[in-house]
C-alpha cells in the first residue's frame, strides 16, 4: 500500500474528522515509505541537517522554513542537489504542521523556539529532531517531554556525539571497572569568542518576519548586531549551547545520572564586556548521587582549541592539555581523557601509564540513522527528549545561580524546582508573549 493509499485507508476506517483530531498525521510508515520532513530554521545547523537528510534516499525534504527569506537560496540549492523534488519555501512553520503528509519536523531554530516548535509539532503528530540545547528553560524542557510522551512522538535531541561508536566503547570501558569507582568527571568548554558589534537599533530588513522570529521571546527593537546567543531572552548562552555536548557525553559515560541535587558555581563577564547578559566565564560544580561533575567554561581563551579538522575522523588524538572540548573521567584506579568531535579517548592507570587508546569518529551519521530508525520503529531515540532535558538542565541551574548572585542552589528533581531560593524559582520558566505561549497542559 503506498503512502497516499494508506492515508486514504485511515480516513475511511477512522472517519476524517476523528482521525485528524486524534492523531493528525500519525501514519504507519512502511519499510519502503519515504519519510517526509520539514526543516524549521535555516541557519548553519539547519542547512547542514537539511542537506544531510536530503542525501538519504529514504527521506524527502518537503519544506524549508525560516522567517528570513534571504536565507532560502543557499539551503534550497543544497537540498535540490540531493533530491528530485523542490522543497516548498515558507516563512511560517505552521504551514509544515498543517501538512498531514509531513512526518518529521527538524527544529534547528534559536533556543527560544525549541520548545514551542517541538510541542506544536508533537501536537500535530510529527516526530521531531530538535537541536540542542533542548530548551530555553527547565519548565519548557519538561513540557517538551510531556508532549512527546502524550502524543507518542519520537523526539531526538541533536547531541550526536552520544551516537558515536567510540563513545560507546568508552562507556563499556568505564563499566568494566578499569577506572575503579568514578567519583569525579570534569567537563571543559574553553572557547574564544569575539566581542559582539555595537550599532544602534534599526529597521527590520525587507524579507524578514522579525515578529515571527521573536515568537515566544520578547520583541525587542531590531538590532542587526545583536547576537541572540548572548542574551537570556533568546538563549541559554554560548557556554550552555556548546558545552551541553560534552556534558551530555559525561552523563552518558557514567550511566546518565538523572538530576543534580545541588549546583554551586561562579560566573562573570570578565573579558567580553559588550552589552551581553550572558557570562563569559563559568566554573560550576554539580552534585549528583555519588558523583561530582564540574564545568570549566570560558569564552576568552584562544590557546584552547576545538579538535582540529585534521584530527577529527582520523587515527589521531588531540593535544589534550589545550583541548577545549574534552571530558576527564577520574576513577579510583584510573583516568580517562575523552574528546568530543571524534577526538577519541585514552585511559591511564594509577601510575599514570597509558593503558588504552581508542580513536574516534564523529557520530552525526549514526545519530541521524538512529532517528530514522526510531521514526519507523517508534522506539525512543538515542538522545531522547528526556535525555536532552536532563543534559541541559544543569546549565539552566548554573545560569539561574548566576542570576541570583552566584548562590549555591539545592534542587529537587521530583518537582524540578529549587528548594533553598525562591528567587531562583522565578527563572525556571520564562514570560511568554500571549500569541506564542507554551501551554501548561500540552
Amino acid at each position: 500500500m503506498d503512502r497516499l493509499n494508506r492515508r486514504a485507508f485511515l480516513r475511511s476506517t477512522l472517519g476524517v474528522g476523528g482521525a485528524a483530531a486524534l492523531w493528525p498525521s500519525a501514519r504507519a510508515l512502511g519499510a519502503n515509505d519515504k519519510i517526509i520532513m520539514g526543516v524549521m530554521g535555516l541557519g548553519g545547523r539547519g542547512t547542514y541537517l537539511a542537506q544531510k537528510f536530503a542525501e538519504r534516499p529514504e527521506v524527502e525534504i518537503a519544506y524549508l522554513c525560516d522567517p528570513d527569506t534571504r536565507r532560502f537560496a543557499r539551503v534550497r540549492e543544497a537540498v535540490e542537489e540531493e533530491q528530485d523534488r523542490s522543497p516548498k519555501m515558507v516563512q511560517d512553520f505552521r504551514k509544515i504542521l498543517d501538512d498531514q503528509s509531513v512526518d518529521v519536523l527538524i527544529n534547528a531554530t534559536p533556543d527560544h523556539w525549541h520548545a514551542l516548535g517541538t510541542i506544536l509539532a508533537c501536537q500535530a503528530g510529527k516526530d521531531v529532531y530538535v537541536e540542542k540545547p533542548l530548551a530555553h528553560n527547565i519548565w519548557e524542557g519538561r513540557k517538551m517531554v510531556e508532549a512527546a510522551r502524550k502524543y507518542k512522538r519520537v523526539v531526538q535531541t541533536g547531541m550526536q556525539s552520544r551516537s558515536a561508536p567510540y563513545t560507546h566503547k568508552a562507556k563499556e570501558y568505564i563499566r568494566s571497572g578499569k577506572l575503579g569507582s568514578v567519583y569525579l568527571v570534569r567537563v571543559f568548554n574553553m572557547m574564544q569568542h569575539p566581542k559582539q558589534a555595537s550599532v544602534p537599533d534599526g529597521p527590520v530588513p525587507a524579507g524578514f518576519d522579525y515578529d515571527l522570529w521573536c515568537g515566544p521571546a520578547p520583541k525587542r527593537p531590531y538590532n542587526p548586531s545583536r547576537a541572540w546567543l548572548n542574551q537570556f531572552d533568546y538563549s541559554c548562552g554560548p557556554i550552555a549551547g556548546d558545552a551541553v555536548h560534552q556534558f551530555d557525553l559525561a552523563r552518558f559515560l557514567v550511566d546518565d545520572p538523572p538530576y543534580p541535587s545541588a549546583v554551586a558555581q561562579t560566573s562573570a563577564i570578565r573579558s567580553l564586556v559588550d552589552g551581553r547578559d550572558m557570562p563569559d566565564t563559568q566554573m560550576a560544580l554539580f552534585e549528583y548521587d555519588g558523583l561530582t561533575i564540574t564545568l570549566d567554561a570560558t569564552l576568552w581563551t584562544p590557546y584552547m582549541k576545538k579538535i582540529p579538522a585534521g584530527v577529527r575522523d582520523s587515527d589521531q588524538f588531540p593535544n589534550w592539555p589545550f583541548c577545549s572540548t574534552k571530558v576527564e573521567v577520574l576513577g579510583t584506579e584510573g583516568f580517562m581523557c575523552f574528546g568530543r568531535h571524534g577526538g577519541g579517548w585514552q585511559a591511564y592507570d594509577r601510575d599514570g601509564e597509558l593503558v588504552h587508546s581508542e580513536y574516534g569518529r564523529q557520530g552525526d551519521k549514526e545519530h541521524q540513522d538512529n532517528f530514522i530508525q526510531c521514526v519507523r520503529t517508534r522506539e525512543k531515540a538515542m538522545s531522547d527528549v528526556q535525555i536532552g532535558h536532563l543534559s541541559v538542565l544543569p546549565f539552566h541551574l548554573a545560569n539561574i545561580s548566576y542570576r541570583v548572585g552566584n548562590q549555591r542552589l539545592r534542587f529537587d528533581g521530583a518537582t524540578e524546582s529549587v528548594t533553598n531560593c525562591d528567587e531562583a524559582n522565578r527563572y525556571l520558566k520564562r514570560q511568554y508573549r500571549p500569541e506564542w505561549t507554551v501551554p501548561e497542559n500540552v
Partner: protein
Amino acid sequence: MARQARSCDVVLCVALVSVCCPGVRARWLPTDDVKVRLETTELGGPKIVVEYDLKDPNVSPESPAYVFLRYSKDFGKNWQLLSTDALRGNGFDIVAKPGHKEVVWWGTDQTAVADLGQVEIRVRAIAMARVPAGRFVMKSLPGGGRDESKAAPPDVNLPLYYIAKYETTVAMYADYLNEVGGEGAGWNSRMAKADRCGIVQESDHTYHVAPGREDYPVTYVSWYDAMGFLQWCGLSLPTEAQWEKAVRGGLYLDGDQTKKQPNPLPERRHPWGDEAPNAGGVYRCNFDGPDDGFERLAPVGSFRRFAGPYGVCDLAGNVAEWTLNWYTTSYHVGLDGFRMARGGSWMAVPEGCDAVTGATQLPLKESSIMGFRGVRNSAVESK
C-alpha cells in the same frame, strides 16, 4: 640555440601563439594578431617581444582590460604565468586603451628556453572596472551580519583596485581547465549539468562547453577552485569590502584624490540604487523565479543596464560570489573556516540581492548558485 647565439640579431620566431583554446573565447576580451619574436641584445641578453591588437573600443581608463600572458616551453604540456616583474611595455596587466600593444619579456635566458620553436605564449584579457581609491560606506558587518541602520556609517577607505566587470564564465573556466586540469583538478562531475553549468570532461581529460553555455557564469566552483583560477590569471578574489564598494561606489565616484563626482547614492541598497529588484515591474537582476526572464541562470551581462556605479555587472543576483573573507566563530575554530559569499543568486528572494546580505559557505562547497569574479589589486595606475 644557434639563432640566439648571434648577438644583436633580430630573429623572427616560429613559436606557436594562441589567444586561448579554440571554441572557448567567450568573455575573454579579444586579443588579435598576436605575434611573437625573439630578439637578442648585446648587453641585455635575449628578450621575447609579443605584439597583439586589443580592438575592443570599450576599453578605457575606467573600463580597462586586465591582460595576462602564460607560456609553455614544452609544446604546451606545462604552462606558467609570466610574472609582470619580467615584462615591459604597454600590453600587460591593466591596459587602459585599445590599440596595438607590445610586451617585452626580458630575462628569457633565465627560463632556460632551449628551443623557441617549442614555446607557446597565450595572451588573454579580462574586462575590468576601475574603482578609484577612497572612502565608501560599508554597511555589512564582519562575518555576515547586516547593518542597515547606521545613521553615521563609518567610512572604509580602500586603495585603488580593479574588479572584473563580469563573473567568470563557463568558457573562461573551461579554457583554464584545458590548460591546467589534465588530472581533473578544478572540475567536478556536477559541472557537466547543462542547465546549471555545462563543462563536460572528455575521457582524455580535456573539456568542452555544452552548446550555448559559454557566456553563463561558471558554477559548482569551490572557493579553492575560484582561487585556483584566479591565481592562474594573476588575480585574487575580492574582499567583502571591495565587493561592497563595487556595488555602492565611493563617496566620490572619481575617488578621494579629485573629489569631483560626488556619489548621488553612497548608501544604495543595490548596484542601481534603492529600488527593489522588481520594483514597478522592472526586473533589474536575476533572482528567484522566471519573471525576470530567467528560470535559472542568466548569461553574464544580461542586466547590464542595472550595473553598479563603476559599470560592474551582475553583482546582484544570478550567482552569489565568493569573497576572500573568512567567517570564523568559536564553533568553527579548528575547522577550515567558512567563507563569505555575497550578492544573492537566481534562487534568492529579491531582498537577498542587495549590498549587505551575505551567506557563509564551507570553502569546499560546490553550488549551482555560486560563482566568482577576480580583482586586481594595484598600487599603480593603469598603462
